[in-house]
């Protein structure tokens, strides 16, 4: 109190008015906290979307990706001629290249449970996934595959068996596959996990696909190469418009931008952030303007004493900042809790980067001050001439 008085150069009237009605004050704090939580959740989903998009990119042993020009994500591009791999290998500065096939598979169990798996077909003679180095020769066995350890909804005995060294046999769409081990990428919003097999097994499973037409060519640069410049040289060397080379970071950024702005999930989360902010503004406006209405007589009295408009604006802004700060505490704590819960339930890492905390707090203050500015319009009704 004494500190606030010194800082403000006056009694902390806004604070005292809020604190005088404890029930309402508490409800207002929780309201702001709830609006915070809404925004945090939507940002959490959005952040999880962006970070899960990056997981398979990080698993690839590549500096440059060559894809068909219609590719928006890692998995949705048309097949491209395998010849492009050889074209790229001919460019000075390219150390290695490998084809990758992409497909999708529903793994249904007899009990009706199902997982949607992203399938990667790789050439077992070439390095393509870092996690498989040292054991890719296993994939040369027909129908051999590795499964993503983070795949959701897999019976626990599957991984227990793999850990014990027992291959696990399954029927996928009428074809037998044998899981020989696991690696980790992590599920996304569109799939529950990943399956990796040899390109031979891949074209056997996906009968409309063929070895000369992979979805992706991984390119590794020789040590010391400037990757963007090398990608430009590869593009110059590629003969036609059927393939585009991009540094892997650029490909990832495009993918994230596509998924957050062009796909319904991204747009829905973006709308959710806006809605949360709107709900917050309405709650705070409601609290501040009814507080002004309740104190019109007191404000009129203070006007009679010679206080000017700016003084009352100060009181309302003081309240706005108090509500923003106190509401942020339960809001962010609840968000931490729900993030942890979501991470546990979905297997998707929903994390709180520090800049999101700062950003939401700054946004909350702006939101509260904007509501406060709206609420000050009611002040005009405090007319000291009506007091006598």
């Amino acid at each position, binding site marked *: 109190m004494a500190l606030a008085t010194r800082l403000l150069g006056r*009694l902390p009237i806004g604070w005292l008015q809020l604190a005088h009605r404890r029930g309402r004050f508490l409800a207002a704090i929780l309201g702001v906290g709830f609006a915070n939580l809404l925004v945090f959740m939507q940002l959490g989903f959005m952040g999880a979307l962006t970070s899960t998009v990056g997981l398979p990119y990080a698993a690839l042993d590549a500096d440059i990706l060559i894809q068909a020009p219609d590719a928006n994500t890692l998995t949705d591009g048309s097949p491209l001629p395998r010849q492009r791999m050889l074209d790229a290998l001919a460019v000075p500065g390219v150390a290695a290249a490998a084809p990758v096939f992409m497909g999708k598979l529903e793994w249904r169990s007899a009990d009706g449970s199902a997982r949607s798996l992203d399938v990667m077909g790789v050439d077992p003679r070439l390095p393509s996934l870092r996690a498989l180095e040292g054991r890719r020769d296993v994939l040369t066995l027909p129908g051999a595959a590795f499964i993503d350890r983070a795949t959701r909804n897999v019976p626990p005995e599957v991984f227990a068996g793999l850990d014990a060294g027992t291959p696990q046999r399954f029927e996928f769409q009428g074809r037998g596959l044998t899981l020989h081990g696991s690696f980790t990428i992590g599920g996304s919003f569109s799939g529950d996990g990943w399956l990796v097999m040899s390109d031979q097994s891949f074209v056997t499973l996906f009968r409309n696909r063929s070895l000369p037409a992979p979805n992706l060519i991984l390119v590794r640069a020789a040590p010391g190469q400037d990757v963007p410049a090398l990608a430009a040289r590869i593009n110059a060397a590629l003969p036609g418009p059927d393939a585009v080379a991009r540094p892997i970071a650029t490909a990832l950024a495009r993918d994230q931008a596509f998924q957050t702005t062009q796909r319904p999930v991204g747009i829905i989360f973006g709308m959710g952030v806006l809605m949360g902010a709107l709900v917050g503004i309405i709650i705070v406006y409601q609290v501040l303007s009814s507080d002004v209405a309740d104190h019109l007589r*007191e404000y009129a009295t203070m006007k009679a004493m010679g206080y000017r408009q700016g003084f009352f604006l100060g009181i309302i802004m003081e309240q706005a900042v108090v509500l923003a700060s106190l509401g942020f505490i339960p809001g962010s704590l609840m968000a931490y809790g729900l993030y942890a819960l979501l991470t546990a339930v979905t297997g998707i890492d929903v994390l709180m980067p520090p800049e999101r905390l700062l950003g939401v707090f700054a946004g909350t203050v702006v939101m509260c001050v904007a509501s406060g500015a709206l609420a000050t319009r009611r002040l005009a009704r405090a007319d000291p001439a009506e*007091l006598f």
Partner: protein
Amino acid sequence: MEPAIMVRGLDHHFGAGEARRQVLFGLDLDIARGALVVLMGASGSGKTTLLTLLGGLRSVQAGSVRVLGREMAGASATALAGARRRMGFIFQAHNLHESLTAVQNVRLALDVHGAVPQAEAAAARALSLVGLEDRLHYHPARLSGGQKQRVAVARALAGSPEIIFADEPTAALDAENGLAVVALLKRLGAARGTTTLMVTHDNRVLDLADRIVTMRDGRLMPA
């Protein structure tokens, strides 16, 4: 020396168009500094309108109102607020701030002048003048009607105003307290030269008045 209040040819109207109605008619009034003046008159006689015009709570429409040497006619809202800082108001309803304690309510009148050193102590002194030194940290909800009115008096006095406008300050008080409050205003007038203009129907306090001004139908009655 110019009187504390000097009114010349003051007219005032309420409403507009067909509903326009004149409530004050050509008032001329001088009130000397340090005087305790009682303003009497039936309700609707224009006392309250006159008080709000003198106190800078309403804009002067026609005529001249000089308070403490300053012309109120045509003054801006900011200038009026500045003028009001040299005045104290005691309202019929106490109008205390319910979220603030007695001493904080009184402080409001001090803080309007900017940071005042020892404001809390000064506010406590003002409360002890009205006999409430043992109720400093009570919120209005825990004070009786008479105590609240005494806090309002302390608040009006605390800023050392040069003029006090009081509207039925004794209405909520019993005979003894009412007389004590008016006696206090009178004593302060003598000690500090504070001018007091008080609307009251309370005959018990008339003896303390230096002068009684009566209004009827928007006009001042000859003394």
